[in-house]
C-alpha cells in the first residue's frame, strides 16, 4: 500500500540545511494499523506530510497504492490527496460555519463525484454521527467534531487513513472513543490506518509501532492486538 525507499527531506533555513529525514525505508501493507511515534523534532511531522502527499521528499521513492508520487506537481498531488488519502487532524480542521454533512461532502465536491449527500450520510452513519448531520462545527463537542472529520476522511473510500495526533485536543473519554473507532474501522473494514502520535497509550491501539529519532527509524515492532 505504502512503500518508502530511501526517503530524505532537507529543509533550508537561510544558509543552513536542516536534515529532517535521513533515509526512511518503510512498507505499510493493506489493512495495517501503524503508529508512528517520536519526540518533537524527530521528523514524524515531516514524514506525515510526505506520506500525506502534502509535501514531496528531497530524494527517494514513494509508492502509494502503486503510484510513484514523489515527483508529482501540485495539482496531481491534490488529486492523490483527494482520492487516496483521508486526513484526520489534531485540531479537527472542519470548515467553519458549514454543517457536518457539507463538511463530509467536501472531498466529493472536489472529486466532482455524484451522489454526494447519500455518501456523506453513509459516512456519518459509519462514525455514529448521523443525528448531528446538520450541526455546525461550533455546535459539536470535540469528540463529535473528530468523528465528523473521520467521516470526511472516509467518504472518498481512500487507500489510507492518515491521523495526525487525532486525540491531541480531546479529553481522555473522547480520546478512547476515537481510538476505538479507528481500531474498529481497521479491524472490521480493513482500513489501512497510519497514526502519528507521541503518546504510548494511544500507540497501544495500533498493531505496529514505528519509532523515529533524528530522522531515522529506530524501532519497528509488531504487537498483537
Amino acid at each position, binding site marked *: 500500500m505504502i512503500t518508502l525507499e530511501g526517503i530524505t527531506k532537507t529543509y533550508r533555513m537561510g544558509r543552513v540545511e536542516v536534515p529532517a529525514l535521513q533515509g526512511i525505508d518503510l512498507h505499510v501493507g493493506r489493512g495495517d494499523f501503524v503508529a508512528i511515534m517520536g519526540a518533537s523534532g524527530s521528523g514524524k511531522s515531516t514524514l506525515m506530510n510526505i506520506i500525506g502527499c502534502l509535501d514531496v521528499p528531497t530524494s527517494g521513492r514513494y509508492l502509494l497504492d502503486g503510484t510513484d508520487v514523489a515527483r508529482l506537481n501540485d495539482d496531481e498531488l491534490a488529486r492523490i490527496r483527494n482520492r487516496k488519502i483521508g486526513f484526520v487532524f489534531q485540531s479537527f480542521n472542519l470548515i467553519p460555519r458549514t454543517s457536518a454533512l457539507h463538511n463530509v461532502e467536501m472531498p466529493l465536491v*472536489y472529486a*466532482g463525484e455524484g451522489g454526494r449527500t447519500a455518501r456523506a450520510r453513509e459516512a456519518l452513519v459509519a462514525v455514529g454521527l448521523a443525528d448531528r448531520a446538520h450541526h455546525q462545527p461550533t455546535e459539536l463537542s470535540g469528540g463529535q467534531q473528530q468523528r465528523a472529520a473521520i467521516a470526511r476522511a472516509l467518504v472518498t473510500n481512500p487507500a489510507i487513513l492518515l491521523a495526525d495526533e487525532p486525540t491531541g485536543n480531546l479529553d481522555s473519554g473522547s480520546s478512547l472513543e476515537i481510538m476505538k473507532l479507528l481500531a474498529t474501522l481497521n479491524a472490521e473494514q480493513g482500513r489501512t490506518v497510519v497514526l502519528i502520535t507521541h503518546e504510548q497509550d494511544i500507540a497501544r491501539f495500533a498493531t505496529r509501532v514505528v519509532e523515529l529519532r533524528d530522522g531515522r527509524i529506530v524501532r519497528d515492532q509488531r504487537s498483537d492486538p
Partner: protein
Amino acid sequence: MNLFEALRIAGNGLLANRLRSSLTMLGILIGVTAVILLVAVGNGASVQINNQVQSLGANVIYIYPSNARGSGGVSQGFGTAQTLTQTDVDAINNRQQAPDIVAAIPIAQSGGQITYANQNYFAPTTGTTTAFPTVRNYQIAEGTFFTDDDVAARHRVVVLGQTVVDNLFGSTDPIGQTIKISKQSFRVVGVFATKGGTGLGSQDNVVVAPITTVWAYLTGERGKVISQIVASASSPSVVTQAETEITTILLQRHQISDATQADFQLQSQQDILNQANSIATALTLVLGAIAGISLVVGGIGIMNIMLVTVTERTREIGIRKAIGARRRDILIQFLIEAMVLSGLGGALGIAVGALLAREAPNIPAIASSSFPTPVVSAPSVVLAFCVSVAIGLFFGIYPANRAARLHPIEALRYE
C-alpha cells in the same frame, strides 16, 4: 467543482461577515448608482434637446446670407450680406426646380417695444408671408392668420404667440384689439396655439406680421431686407435632397460656379439636432466617466476586503487543499466570491439608480427647474452590470491567486 457549489461556498463566505460584505458592496452600489443616474441625466438632456429641436420642425431648412466679401476679399462676418431676395424665395417655391420643398418663406426680423393699454412688452416681430404656419408648423388657436391680401396691401395686422398674449392682455380677448409696435398701430387678427419648448428660445414669444408691412413700418431705413429664408421639406427624410435643390437654385440664380464661394448658407434642423446630440453625447460620456471613478474606488474596496478574507481564511484554504482542492478550485472560489460581491452591488446599484431616476421628477426642486428628466437606457443598465462584475473579476484576481498559491502545510499551520 461545479458553479452551483462554488456559488454556495461564496455565499457562505459572504454571509459569515455580513457587515463587511454589505459595506464592500455599498462601494460598488454607490458607484453603479452614480453611473446609472448620471448617464440617465445625460440621456434625459439629449431627449430634451431632441424634443425641442423636433418641435421646431425636423424638416425645416434655414437659408442665411453668407459672409459678405468686400472687393479685397475681406470677410465682413456672418449675416452681414444682404443677398437673399424675394425672387430667390419664388424660385425655391417653384415645384419644378425644388420638388422636395413644400413651401419657402422670407423672414424679416424687427425688434420693438410692444404696448397695449398700459402694458408693454418686448418681443421680436417677424415679417413673413402666408405660408408661415405651414413652414414653421404653427397652429392658429383663435382668429385667423393674415391673408395674401394683407401681404399685398401692407395691412397692419399681427398674429401673436401665447406668451405675448399672456403678457399684454391678461384675461382680455386679444382678437380685434389694437397694439402698438414701435409706436405703429397693428390689429391683432389671430393667436397661435402654444408650442412649448424652452431653453433654445420660446416659440410662443412671437409676433408675426406681413413682411411688406414690417418693411413699410418697422425696418425703417434698412429697407426691404430678407434676413433669412425658411423652407420646409416634404418630410424629414428628404431634407438632404431639399438642401441640394436649394443650393443648386441659389448658386444658379446668384451666378456662382464655385460652391465654396456661395453667398448663402443652409442649416437644417437636422444639423442643429446633430450638433445638439453630439454635445449631449459628450456630456453623457463625461458624466459617466466621473461616475466610473467611483466604481474603480469600489473595486479597490473589494480587493482590499478579499485580501483580508484570504488572510483570515488561510487555514480553511489549507484544509480544502489537504482534502483535494486544486489551485484552480481555490482560485475560482475566491474569484466568484469577489464577483458575487460586485455583481450583487451592481444589481442593487442599478435598482437604486433606476428608482432615483424615476423619482427625480417628483422632487419639487427638480420639477420646478428645467432640469432634464433622467432617462435610464437599457444599454447603460447592461453595461453597468457587466462592468461591475468585471470589476469583481479584475480586483478579485490578485487576492484569489494569492489564496490559490498558498502551500497546504503552511496554510494548515496558520493560526
